[in-house]
């Protein structure tokens, strides 16, 4: 199980992740990034990895394990 972590200090809402994985990421009307599936399915993983790799502000990471707590 992997989990997406967004560094809100870094994220500048460029929408790069939404371009690569539109089912998982969306820039909301207020300009904030919303992660629809913070614990993405197996099938989403290749796109999510690509989004993490190409994020212009290096704001995304994919970590192992479910949400703490």
């Amino acid at each position, binding site marked *: 199980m992997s989990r997406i972590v967004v560094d809100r200090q870094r994220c*500048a809402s460029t929408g790069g992740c*939404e371009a690569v994985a539109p089912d998982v990421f969306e*820039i909301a*009307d*207020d300009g904030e990034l919303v992660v629809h599936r913070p614990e993405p399915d197996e099938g989403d993983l290749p796109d999510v990895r690509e989004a993490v790799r190409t994020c*212009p*502000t*290096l704001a995304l990471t994919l970590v192992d394990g479910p949400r703490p707590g």
Partner: protein
Amino acid sequence: MTVGLAAPDGAGIDLDGIDLSDREFWLQPPAVRHAVFDALRRERPFAFYAEPELPWLEAGRGYYAVTRYADVDAISSRPAVFCSGSGAVSIIDMPPDINEFFGSMISMDDPRHAKIRRIVAKTFTPRMLERLVDSVQQIADDVADGARRKAEAGDGTIDVVADLAAPIPLRVVCDMMGIPDEDRAMVLQKSTIILSGGDPELVESLEDFAAAMLEAGGALSDLMNRLAAERLADPRDDLTTALVRSEVGGEQLTHQEIASFFILLLVAGNETTRNAISQGVLALSEHPEQRDRWAADPELTRTAVEEIVRWTSPIGWMRRTATQDGEVNGHRFAAGDKFLLFYGAANRDPEVFREPQVLDLARDPNPQIGFGAHGPHFCLGAHLARREIAVTFRTIFDRLPDLTVSGEPSRLRSSFVNGLKRLPARLGER
């Protein structure tokens, strides 16, 4: 200054004789410029140059020309240390009000940059752009048909710049913003002046350039103030309406902020994509086997677009200014030092790209940084530009398969915009 064509990898070039601040350098053919970049990247990755002279402003102490991919990326991704707020689009420091007037968010740092970027972000996401796809296709069809009619009515020739590359992005940006038809010719003319880099064909002298810039900015700003007022009273489904009505954290954009953002969009949205298209057409005519491959295989479009942007790198550089003393990849710098990030040079760095001097439309992966390297200023219009380039080339293959470049391109004398003023072509038997 002219540089003879040395070995293709820049071996044998006398770097002491090279001055990137010399405007004439930028008129040289790409092969010469790239040979110089190759030599700089290898021998002087932080080459230092005096600032170009402008009659009405005092030059600063000079700048470093950054040509290695790793250095461009390292600087771009540390916005707190290397800021944009002292000016990202001019080498010489401009008075702060001019900076903001012409630069808007591109010459701002957090927190103001983040505020404006969040307000406009939604409008430029891929999801929102889906709604625009049809209209980009329609515009491209329309423009291509117009080019065909022009060729048929005349001697069979067109200008790729004026008849294809310029009108498509202009109409897309104007549609997004809801600019009335009757104002569009003015918008094209003014944005061309703002990005002319003082090219003598477009402005008479450098003294006139300052006046022409201010006049152009003023005219665009007037137009936007008028539109903003109209949309407040009578909202529509366009970007202008979204901007005048948007609020982030209870804050609205001021009228001045909206006008400046408009100027940025007009300029950044027109002059860049235009040159990606015109120089893309030129590149494909120089590499006919690549052209035929793309024409036959629409599946190639995703990688082809990235390669066109890497190859043409329409924006020559952005500037960053050090906010403190420090070190980057072994290079020591002091607060106030200026860095020009030469994207076109980084985009041919052999450390990152295999056979960088080969145009390969199937290149994958292609971590090109034509839209900017890592960092919060990464091109807002990147998704839109990709779409425009993709649609335009597919439309050329479909509707103008007989297009052939028929003469020498005329280059813009600018280091900032890698651009063509004209590119003659013929429609008819190949």
